[in-house]
């Protein structure tokens, strides 16, 4: 028995719409299997994972805190991947954005007015964009594979942050704990509705970024350029678009948004520069980008789903004693299923049972 793919004459609109849902359904089924293997009641576990974290208002705030950075990063990545530039180092750009934005409250703690926060956000964007420019420069100038360089830079950024938080930026009055001074309130992204929960304006920024980038992709020439160069570089060159400039655009935008997410996290959720500021947001955002069909608006829904796996993981650990590592397995599985289901958009799948003609042809 084997699979046979038959190309559809045109993309299936139906599967385009339902394939992410299909993938989520398969993930739930896989969840039942995993929980059963772990000896936990599967339905109760799924409830704890995917329903319980949504039952109270403060929990929705927690969801927004986790979804904000995921959406912001994934919006940029979806543009980069559309243009066929494989930036997988968003985690590093996130960290560098967090560092660059924190320079202001750490180095000039006296500078506290209405300009502090906007400047920090600009620094954050610039820090991430500049760090993202390294793989872009190496790709355009030296023809170096951007997948490997952008990923290697993640490790470099993590170690650099570790050095800062334990070394030069350590709070002198912090009892030798790693981490900078706590930011003054002028340098903190405020909470949206402090009476209800802890969510900060970073989430709103992410939604705004998603809408702006979506409009750019949908209505502007730049959006057309991204899609054209991604799908057919040759046709793009004939149209007079430069693929080298596109590499920079993709990396500066995705790196910048990752950096903006980084400073939002530091200034909104954490309040100081620590040796570890991300539970792998930069990598999870890759999953978000694909689950959102590489569409900036789609990443909003996808970001909320992935944020739910983080929260569900914490909840399941507390109430059922299930390792929070299971959340990571879920995240990996979602991407697998999304990619598999996407095949249905372009192909019909046929099961062939023992086809002797094909067999002799194959063995020749």
């Amino acid at each position, binding site marked *: 028995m084997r699979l046979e793919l038959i190309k559809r004459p045109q993309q299936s609109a139906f599967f385009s719409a339902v394939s992410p849902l299909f993938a989520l359904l398969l993930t739930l089924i896989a969840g039942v299997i995993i929980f059963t293997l772990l000896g936990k009641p599967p339905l109760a576990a799924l409830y704890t994972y995917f329903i319980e974290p949504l039952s109270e208002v403060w929990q929705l705030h927690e969801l927004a805190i986790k979804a904000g950075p995921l959406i912001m990063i994934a919006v940029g990545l979806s543009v980069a991947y559309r243009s066929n530039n494989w930036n997988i180092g968003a985690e590093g750009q996130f960290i560098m954005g967090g560092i660059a934005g924190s320079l202001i409250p750490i180095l000039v703690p006296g500078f506290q007015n209405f300009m502090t926060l906007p400047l920090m956000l600009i620094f954050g964007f610039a820090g991430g964009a500049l760090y993202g420019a390294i793989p872009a420069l190496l790709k355009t100038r030296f023809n170096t594979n951007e997948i490997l360089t952008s990923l290697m830079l993640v490790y470099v950024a993590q170690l*650099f942050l570790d050095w800062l938080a334990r070394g030069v930026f350590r709070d002198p009055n912090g009892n030798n704990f790693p981490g900078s001074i706590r930011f003054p309130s002028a340098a903190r992204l405020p909470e949206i509705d402090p009476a209800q929960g802890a969510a900060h304006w970073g989430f709103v920024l992410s939604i705004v970024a998603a809408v702006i980038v979506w409009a750019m992709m949908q209505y502007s020439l730049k959006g057309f350029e991204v899609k054209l160069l991604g799908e057919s570089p040759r046709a793009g060159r004939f149209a007079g678009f430069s693929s080298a400039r596109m590499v920079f655009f993709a990396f500066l935008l995705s790196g910048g948004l990752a950096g903006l997410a980084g400073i939002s996290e530091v200034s909104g959720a954490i309040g100081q520069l620590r040796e570890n500021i991300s539970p792998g947001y930069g990598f999870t955002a890759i999953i978000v980008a694909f689950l959102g069909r590489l569409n900036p608006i789609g990443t909003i829904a996808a970001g909320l789903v992935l944020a739910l796996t983080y929260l569900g993981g914490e909840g399941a650990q507390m109430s059922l004693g299930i390792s929070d590592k299971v959340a990571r397995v879920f995240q*990996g599985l979602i991407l697998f299923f999304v990619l598999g289901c996407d095949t249905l958009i372009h192909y019909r799948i046929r099961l062939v049972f023992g086809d002797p003609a094909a067999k002799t042809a194959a063995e020749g």
Partner: protein
Amino acid sequence: MDMFQNILLTIATASTPLLIAAIGELVVERSGVLNLGVEGMMVIGAVCGFAAALMTGSPWIGVLAAIIAGMLLSLLFGFLAISLATNQVATGLSLTLLGIGLSGMIGENFVGQAGIRLPNLDIPVLTDIPMVGRLIFGQDPLFYISLALTAGVMWFLFKTRTGLTLRAIGDSHKSAHALGINVLKYRYLAVMFGGGCAGLAGAHLSLVYTPQWVENMTAGRGWIALALVVFSSWRPWRVIGGAYLFGAVTIGQLHAQALGFGIPSQFLSSLPYVATIVVLVLISRNRRLTVMNTPASLAQPFVPDR
């Protein structure tokens, strides 16, 4: 002089997992498939090898379990990237993410437990030869396997008909298909070989290099192995040079950390990653040469027509 031998021994130990994983991925890429999941398969190999060795008491069963685990995970990649013709970059990435997640879940109960080390070779008299005895006759078994594996892959790719077919598929899957070669079958086998190698490389980490389980203990070695394949221009013997260069950088920075020098340890720790970038830049600078050396169908899905 004995210190010199000791340093060379530690370099060999640091290089062996890189060599094993890279040589496996080289075969995969020669068949035209780019599997970015090396890191994930490696970390799964590390945890499964460690767990199996601990539970059975036999490190060799651990090695076997690691190879099988790596192969199983690579089959998952194969099903998507080969049978369902998905985007190989994204599929490989998801394999890495899944592998890291799964390994954390499997290994949770093994964190901090003392592991079992695969014993070194010990041949009476020969191993005791001063200066070179332990280097040639007294290393861990996987060191010898890694060299044999490299020699075997060289022989297979360039001296056998099947190897020629595999390279032909990597360069032009359409022509190979037209000649009646079963492209998908070859690719499945190549991907499984790569998975087995990545698993074995992981086992080296958790059964030889540091016999314990630490979350994420591969620390990017799978990605460095991928870079080594590019560095080698897809030639097996050059992978040895690359792997040992990186082993030397890793050990060198560890010694520098021990000596101090006043350089922050984080900067020294980032050296292997920076070195990877520098080496990649140097090797891919010549665009024409890179295009010539890269398997022409690399990372392109193939859907056979009927």
